């Protein structure tokens, strides 16, 4: 029996099959609209595709979680409520929600449906998690990336709600669901539209031998000749703290780096974390297959008490660098 469930992303049916085949215990996905926090063009699932995904996954004893984790628009709750209704009807194993009103709706209309609290709700303490459990019967909380492993351990000792943590992929340096940086620069936000630093507002601008990446009206980074140009995610850009111009701008919020918490498996087990989550619903099936298979091998080795194989994932991490992020105190 493995101490961890492996929760894997799927942005389309091919990625879902790849994740299932590579050893996911559960796959999470969203509908093709603003109800989920990866509302990108060409991604996500229709109702029919969810039905097929559930059939494919359940036939292989893999669960399907549906993320409905943006904040419903005032005066237009129906798309979010319908998403919950349809996820329940199509036999999803859980829905992942963030909004208080939508949690209330799901708890009242679908008492049998398993509710997970999205990272977008940013529930970072035992008091908050107990409230979600008592008010809505939330069974699992995806923890925001603000806690160290010792803090997670103390939290799990206090509250009898399952906890799921991100172990691999993109990394928000801000508390999730409490960030309107993207909205400030572009008008489109994770909470409202399910997008962050949207491609519709991105431009690349040659400047001599250099290349500037822009988001809305702001330059997010300038890459020298030969330096790989990254996507201008707002919080991963170079800025000038203190204001003014500088020849030496800094990655003030976060470097273009990826989370990889593989080395923390023993600590996460001791902290009684029950599920490990891979970020990346926007990724292609080849990436999903490689990352999920690598994590599957690592978790199986760990469960057998064998040395955890080092992952050959360097090519798959943003900017080629990895971090254990907020799980270690020095990150702060």
């Amino acid at each position: 029996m493995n101490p961890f469930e492996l929760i894997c992303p799927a942005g389309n049916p091919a990625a879902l099959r790849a994740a299932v085949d590579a050893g996911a215990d559960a796959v999470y996905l969203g509908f093709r609209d603003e109800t989920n926090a990866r509302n990108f063009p060409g991604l996500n699932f229709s109702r029919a595709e969810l039905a097929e995904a559930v059939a494919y996954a359940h036939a292989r004893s893999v669960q399907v979680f549906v993320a409905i984790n943006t904040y419903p628009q005032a005066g237009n709750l129906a798309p979010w409520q319908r998403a919950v209704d349809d996820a329940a009807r199509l036999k999803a194993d859980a829905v992942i929600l963030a909004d208080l009103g939508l949690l209330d709706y799901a708890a009242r209309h679908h008492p049998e449906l398993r509710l997970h609290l999205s990272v977008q709700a940013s529930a970072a303490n035992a008091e908050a998690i107990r409230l979600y459990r008592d008010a809505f019967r939330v069974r699992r909380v995806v923890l925001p990336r603000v806690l160290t492993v010792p803090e997670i351990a103390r939290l799990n000792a206090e509250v009898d709600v399952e906890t799921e943590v991100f172990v691999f992929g993109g990394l928000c340096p801000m508390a999730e669901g409490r960030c309107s940086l993207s909205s400030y620069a572009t008008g489109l936000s994770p909470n409202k539209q399910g997008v962050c630093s949207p491609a519709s507002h991105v431009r690349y601008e040659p400047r001599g031998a250099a290349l500037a990446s822009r988001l809305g009206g702001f330059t997010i980074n300038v890459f020298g000749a030969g330096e790989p140009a990254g996507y201008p995610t707002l919080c991963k850009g170079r800025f000038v703290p203190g204001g003014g111009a500088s020849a030496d701008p800094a990655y003030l919020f976060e470097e273009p780096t990826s989370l990889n918490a593989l080395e923390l498996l023993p600590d996460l087990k001791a902290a009684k974390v029950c599920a490990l989550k891979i970020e990346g619903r926007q990724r292609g099936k080849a990436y999903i297959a490689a990352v999920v298979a690598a994590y599957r091998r690592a978790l199986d080795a760990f469960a057998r008490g064998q040395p955890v194989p080092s992952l050959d994932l360097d090519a798959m991490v943003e900017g080629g660098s990895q971090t254990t992020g907020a799980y270690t105190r020095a990150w702060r």
Partner: protein
Amino acid sequence: MKPTLTLGPVLFNWPVQRWRDFYARIADEAPVDAVVVGEIVCSKRAPFLAPVMDEVIGRLAAAGKEVWLATPILVGSDRERTAMRDLLECDLLPMEANDMGALALLEGRRHAVGPFINSYNEATLAWLAGRGAVAVSLPAELPAAAVATMAKMGTALGLSMEVQVFGRAPLAISARCYHARAHGLHKDGCQFVCGNDPDGMPVSTVDGQPFLSVNGTQTLSHGYLALAAEMDRLLAMGIRRFRLSPQDLDMVAVAKAFRAVLDGERSGPDVVAELRRMTGVPLENGFFHNMAGVAYAGAPAPAA
């Protein structure tokens, strides 16, 4: 019901003497009805304010202000949890919850929901009202259509609905301290460098374009959110509380200007012009007008 002018908590790390003097002047001179106090950004700063907290609260109350205590935005570490629990032991003042943990502990007590709890729609308002909230301060990123719907539904639920009308828009909170990081320090050994920037640390783009403002673990807009020209529209929607977030400028003058708009003595655009004379910091109202938050829509949009 008479509209309420609320002064939000000081977000920045001001020396305790300055903090106390600021509230003394607010008590004596600012035409605000409600004052929310408390260190909500960083639990490391709170001990500096503690020795004068009772004095400040007493002075504001004696001046007839309705005083609220605000709970911290981010409560994750042991220190933050302890700070939140200590704060909630005070049962003499109504509380403004900025985190779901605080909201949990406030069940059965008179409380408001602060702008850092995600209230995005009427279903959430109904749930909050059902648990005993008396007022809800809306997140800054909500557009006018959402504000209108929530003002109407919230009022029907018995909630007093609030919108921030002045001050830098809070954009993000983190476990990481960007002030410390910018100075090559760790949060644990931060030397309280955030105290060097009483209005936030300016952050510009590579091109030198002003963009954001860092306040320790918090990131704010560079510009001051200013909805002076939108006050009539907000009143018509049913908004009854108007929040001013303290910045490093004459907040008594700011309060008098917004009060004059509420009292029908001055026009919103006139106050916008005065704000522009008071500060070189750009004004912003883009969130409300369903644009990028950084924008300023010059002409008020037609009524919803």
